[in-house]
């Protein structure tokens, strides 16, 4: 396998996992922010998932989903969920009460208040959550090679097995560059959204 193909696989794993986590995490976080008590249980459950080591989580999912990229995506999704949930809840919580009250008093519907006021003001924090999720998932996804999901981890495992440093570098360097690039791009977006 060449490096470019492995990097492509790796990126796909990350994008699908983080994309799904964002798709589910954002509405869940909005719900959790509106309903703090049950919302807190949701956040704690996500906390708990975070404490399971990646290899152990793969092992737990093995009998349910079987080996391959699909299982890797499920595990990576579970890890990506927490930073997205936490940062979205924190972002929504940081919107000043007076601003929300003024929006409600203006006659805006709850949906309009969310769209016009709460989400835009929480956006930098939400993107910061996506940024953490993306960067950590790029790293964690290297473990996915252990369950036959491919990606840059393939080189790492082969390098470890054969004690071949070039193979280790072929996996580690592109993964690191990918993480740095993702961090830079999402950091730039986060910064743009904070400027007004």
């Amino acid at each position, binding site marked *: 396998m060449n490096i470019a193909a492995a990097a492509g696989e790796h990126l796909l794993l990350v994008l699908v996992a983080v994309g799904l986590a964002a798709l589910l995490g954002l509405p869940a976080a909005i719900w959790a922010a509106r309903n703090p008590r049950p919302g807190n249980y949701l956040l704690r459950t996500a906390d708990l998932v975070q404490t399971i080591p990646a290899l152990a989580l793969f092992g737990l999912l093995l009998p349910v989903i079987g080996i391959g990229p699909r299982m890797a995506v499920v595990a990576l999704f579970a890890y990506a969920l927490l930073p997205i949930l936490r940062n979205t809840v924190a972002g929504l919580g940081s919107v000043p009460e007076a601003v929300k009250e003024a929006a409600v008093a*203006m006659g805006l519907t709850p949906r309009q208040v969310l769209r016009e006021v709460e989400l835009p003001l929480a956006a930098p924090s939400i993107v910061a959550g996506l940024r953490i999720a993306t960067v950590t998932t790029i790293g964690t996804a290297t473990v996915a090679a252990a369950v036959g999901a491919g990606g840059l981890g393939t080189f790492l495992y082969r390098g470890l097995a054969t004690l071949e440093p070039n193979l280790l570098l072929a996996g580690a360097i592109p993964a690191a560059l990918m993480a740095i690039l993702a961090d830079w791009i999402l950091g730039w977006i986060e910064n743009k959204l904070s400027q007004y």
Partner: protein
Amino acid sequence: MIRFAGVSCERDGRPVLRGIDAEFRAAEITVLLGRSGSGKSTLLRLMNRLLEASTGTVTVLGRAVAEWDVYALRRAIGFVPQNLGLFPHRRIGEQMHLAGAERATAGDLLERIGLPATYLDRYPHQLSGGEQQRAALARALAGSPKLLLLDEPFSALDPVTRRQLQQLVKSLAVTTVFVTHDLREAFALGDRIGFLSAGKLAAFGSRQDLEASQQPELRLFLETLA
């Protein structure tokens, strides 16, 4: 214009307002005066249903607030909270548009409030404190409301700017309910003044009525003038 009949209000199981009967007349500025925690901000928020009465009826523009479509009720009422609640991420013009003003009328309105129309394209943080108060007032007026509710909007201003804005409010000729804990401000602005003490309307009338009142807490307020 606005009528309270036997209104009480509880918040977190604690009574905040008790047995309020009052009428706020059209084309007048009614000031609600009282110490912190006397219930004046709560009373104000019952008018646009930011809060709901526990018992009694609040009637606005001839209809009980509970019978209004809540969004229509709020659009008919301009509101400025104590911290203004300007949206930090939206230009003044965009905020006025959200509140119901077209760009051309928004510019005119801004000039009437004493800000240049070019401020439509500014963000709140680009304005001084006094300018932000004016912008908040302009946004509250953007939907051509029949009623204006102001909750201590000028408490953080220097006395000169404060005087200018009080005069501006008087010149608007919109039915206004103005909350303050400042007796001088109440006398400067109010056609009529309601004095709240521990959730009850302890006095309600003209400046002369209030000056003649023997209500002990109100006497303490009046002594601060001497």
